[in-house]
């Protein structure tokens, strides 16, 4: 059953040091800024963070990196014009980096939630990012074997939740939220509002409440 948390500090309680944390968002859209800030305030360390990027500017994920709480980041695109926080940490050898093609990153998260043990993908086959991985030619095409990314926690941002934890998103803010919600043992969503059960149209629910453990309303 979903818990409607009174504030973000309550929402992020109990995250253990050393956790793997999926963090939603593609750029600012869908980035759970309030939950990231709360995780930063709590100070939980030795984290492995999974996000498409490695933080931008000095807020959100970048601010979390700046504290040194993150031991390793798994992402597809860490090199953006304003990823200076990550770049400095990386140059100093203070953060570990695993780069994955964006689609393999998404599919590995989806696989974790879907109980798939591993999958062969053509993306990345024959490239540097496939080095050390199992390869196989299927139907005449090179493939590489990729494994799921299981996580302890997912922090995501949706638009509206109902009291059963069902979520709907808004425009390209959807991005990684629906798959990250499925792949973690503890899924926490920040939303703009919580509506009574029965308000959301069952046809339009994107993330069923079964995947959501805690919801918190943020500005």
């Amino acid at each position, binding site marked *: 059953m979903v818990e409607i948390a009174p504030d973000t500090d309550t929402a992020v309680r109990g995250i253990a040091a050393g956790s793997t944390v999926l963090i939603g968002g*593609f*750029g*600012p*859209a*869908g980035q759970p800024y309030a939950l990231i800030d709360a995780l930063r305030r709590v100070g939980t360390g030795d984290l492995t963070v999974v996000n*498409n990027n490695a933080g931008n500017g000095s807020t959100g994920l970048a601010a979390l990196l700046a504290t040194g709480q993150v031991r390793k980041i798994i992402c*597809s*695109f*860490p*090199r*953006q014009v304003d990823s200076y926080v990550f*770049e400095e940490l*990386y*140059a100093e050898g203070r953060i570990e*980096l695993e*780069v*994955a*093609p*964006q*689609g*393999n990153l*998404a*599919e590995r*998260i*989806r696989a974790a939630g879907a109980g798939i043990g591993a999958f062969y*993908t*053509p*993306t*990345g*086959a*024959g*490239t*540097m*990012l496939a080095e050390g991985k199992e390869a196989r030619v299927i139907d005449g095409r*090179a493939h590489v074997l990729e494994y799921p990314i299981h996580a302890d926690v997912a922090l995501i941002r949706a*638009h509206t939740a109902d009291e059963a934890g069902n979520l709907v*998103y*808004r*425009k*390209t*803010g*959807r*991005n*990684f*939220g*629906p*798959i990250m919600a499925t792949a973690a043992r503890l899924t926490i969503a920040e939303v703009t509002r919580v509506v009574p059960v029965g308000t959301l149209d069952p046809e339009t629910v*994107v993330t069923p409440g079964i995947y959501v453990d805690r919801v918190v309303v943020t500005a």
Partner: protein
Amino acid sequence: MIEHPAPLTRVELARLVARDIPPNSYVNLGIGQPTAVADHLDPAHGVVLHTENGMLGMGPHAHGDDVDPDLLNAGKTPVTELPGASYFDHAQSFAMMRGGHLDVCVLGAFQVAGDGTLANWHTGAPDAIPAVGGAMDLAVGAKDVFVMMTLFDKTGAPKLVRECTYPVTGLRCVSRVYTDQAVFHLDGDRVLVTETYGTTMSELSARLDVPLTTAP
């Protein structure tokens, strides 16, 4: 083969690529130079733009009051939504790409080999931070992968090469290369020159270490 007198400007190159995108096709335009192709698509041709962060039916860049922080393209720039649009999550978006449902993607490149192998994600410099984004997915996924780039880099070295020296993005995936000096059609075996701009076949053959042919 058609010979034109002068090399193409960046705008002309974008217009040329736009001309060659079939009407009603589903298209992904890579970040950087390919994004400019959108400005030259005729709305009457019904091309539908895909952005890998989860949308079909992307419209032009948003300005002023139209800017919505929840509506971004793959370059994280605010865009607009056209009628008939749809939103989906990242796994679905990349399933669409990897599954071969996009008709065309247009990408920039560091190098393209004669067999269509693409290098566009990493310089390979030891201190460079690797960052791939969706490039490898687009390279393997679209039915046709168009590259747009200058034919030579700033040092004058050709970017259409016998073998990529930069780390590759995808093997034998590029079908066309649009450059400021010529258009090349690749079928995996041959490199066919279809148009030249301010150069000639013999000049191209002299400067490129790739066997070139023209249509009979």
